[in-house]
């Protein structure tokens, strides 16, 4: 198999890095529908996949895209799609189906500005709550958010790892600036990053239960055509996959969906912090916004303000405990988002009593720059 990239330093776009990260992860199926500002991911996959023996298909819409990658993943290929807000909204029903049927797959949402069609070529971070609560019904979600081109690569790999490890769809939440930005990065070499693939069953097919409740709650997964003939349905089902209305089986199923993720919270949570130890004010931000926030924190430190940075990389499950720890000594936490206030509600829910929650929001398609954030630090500190 040819390697996807030279290990030299290369100038790469965030979206391209996602595509390269996917190839690195062993992703061999992409089903998608173009939408700004994510399209370069589809275009990259269309170019690369056949070279690696993988398959690209442009579907008729985002609903079909989501369906196709679930189908392909059920058939054994690591699969991905990429979209932005409007497409992500359309995918919700089938994302829910993937949660329910525990089919691993990765959905990239390169967030654009504004609600509805909004600002297709501008930035936003207003799909943060949707990434957790988008589909009807109860699920537990894993969502990761990179902040650099190199991280676009790495977190795509992480997203696949989480997805395969926990048999669940994972969303990578990017943004327009990140997706279109180019940085000179060193592309990870083969073997440099861990690549996890779903566990396969090792029992005879008669013993195989596609949704077995194992000790770690994640069931080994046979692919369609592997010789294990199972049934898959979005109806509530038993461990074999057959529809059930038995309340004990339903509860067990839903608990499995929830706890197979929450129980591995520590493994899933990724958080990047700087100078929080002695911080009296912490700035919490993710994605592109976190880069401006980091610069603002440094500006504040230069002015002898004890500022620190908390950057969740795993957005969901929300890093309650970790963040609380970092806020142990802070008097203030300033949540900076390119939306009207979403993660800030989570922070309000979990912030220690001594720590007041402040927020800085922008939602007109432009980024918050370091000076904006620095000023706000001065104002609320």
């Amino acid at each position, binding site marked *: 198999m040819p390697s996807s990239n030279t290990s030299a330093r290369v100038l790469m776009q965030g979206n391209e890095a996602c595509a390269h990260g996917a190839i690195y992860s062993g992703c061999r*199926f992409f089903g998608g529908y173009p939408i700004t500002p994510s399209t370069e991911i589809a275009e990259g996959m269309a170019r690369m996949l056949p070279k690696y023996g993988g398959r690209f298909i442009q579907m008729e819409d985002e609903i*079909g*895209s989501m369906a*196709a990658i679930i189908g392909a993943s059920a058939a054994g290929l690591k699969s991905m799609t990429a979209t932005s807000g409007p497409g992500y909204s359309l995918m919700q029903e089938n994302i829910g189906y993937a949660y329910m049927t525990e089919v691993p797959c990765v959905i990239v949402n390169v967030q654009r500005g504004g609600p509805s069609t909004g600002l297709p070529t501008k930035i936003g971070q207003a799909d943060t709550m949707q990434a957790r609560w988008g589909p009807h019904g109860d699920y537990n979600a894993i969502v990761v958010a990179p902040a650099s081109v190199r991280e676009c690569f790495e977190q795509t790999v992480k997203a696949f790892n989480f997805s395969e490890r926990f048999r669940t769809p994972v969303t990578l939440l990017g943004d327009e600036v990140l997706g279109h930005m180019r940085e000179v990065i060193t592309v990870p070499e083969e073997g440099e990053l861990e690549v996890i693939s779903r566990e396969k069953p090792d029992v005879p097919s008669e013993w195989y239960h596609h949704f077995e409740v194992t000790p770690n709650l994640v069931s080994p997964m046979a692919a369609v*055509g592997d010789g294990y003939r199972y*049934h898959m349905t979005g109806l509530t089902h038993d461990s074999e996959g057959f529809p059930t209305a038995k309340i004990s089986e339903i509860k067990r199923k839903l608990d499995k969906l929830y706890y197979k993720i929450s129980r591995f919270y520590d493994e899933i949570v990724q958080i990047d912090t700087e100078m929080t130890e002695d911080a009296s004010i912490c700035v919490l931000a993710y994605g592109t916004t976190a880069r401006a926030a980091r610069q603002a924190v440094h500006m504040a430190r230069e002015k002898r303000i004890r500022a620190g940075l908390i950057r969740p990389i795993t957005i969901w499950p929300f890093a309650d405990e970790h963040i609380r720890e970092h806020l142990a000594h802070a008097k203030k936490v300033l949540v900076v988002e390119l939306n009207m206030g979403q993660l800030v509600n989570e922070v309000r829910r979990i912030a220690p009593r001594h720590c007041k929650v402040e927020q800085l929001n922008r939602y007109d398609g432009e980024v918050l720059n370091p000076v904006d954030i620095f000023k706000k630090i001065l104002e609320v500190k």
Partner: protein
Amino acid sequence: MVEATKPEDKQTSDVTHQYLRTKKNFPNVWCPGCGIGTVMGSIIRSIDKLGYKKNEVVLVSGIGCSSRLPVYCDFNTLHTTHGRSIAFASGVKVAKPNLKVIVVTGDGDCLAIGGNHFIHACRRNIDLTVILINNQIYGMTGGQCSPATPNLAYATTAPYGNLEHNFIPVDLAKGAGASYIARSTVYHVQQMDKMIVGALQKKGFSLVEAISNCHTYYGRLNKEGDAVAMLKWMKEHAMSAKVAKNLPPEKLEGKFLTGLLWDVEKPEFCEEYEKLIQRLQK
């Protein structure tokens, strides 16, 4: 079409039992006399006749009474979301082209909410076989209008008679570019077997429309009687396309055509993709 067949080309009925998931899922959910079970027998016999291995067969369905079919069959079975079965199936097939992927869908699932995936699959020509069980109504949700409900017919959401016009699924498929199109009824079971065998053998997108009876809703609301009465209606109104070719138009009044209605060759998506991979990996 239903005539005594010669023993040598007759599968015994027992054959179907070997393909059923009898332990967990029977008795099935269908109403007494519902034709969906009959279509299921036909699908199973066709697969058996072609000697496909259970492991290589995938049945994919959406939501509806018809879409409940796969759960009873001992193949790889995917019961997906309403209307999306063909898109799921496309993913399965493109990912693993050696699988035999069959979509089982209803007139609501396939033509209403799923219409877009249907026409695009016709166009794209992925080697899928779609069995569209057309009972002209939404059975599962209790008798609402479907895109196959005829103009002026009654349904719970058409209490004064349907003001819309129905799709003719075979025309739609043809307009969208399907490569194999056949139609049969749950009365004409042996013809249906043949059509499904042909569809499975076709390299490319194939459609078999299986006219079925929902006497519980369609029959009751439209005073078409019970299952037996509806099967009789099919018997009387179906006309084999082969036979029809040689008949004057008067004789076709009020009839509908069955049998193989369209069959053309187009490059198949998975094969073309395979060639592309070969070319690029050279």
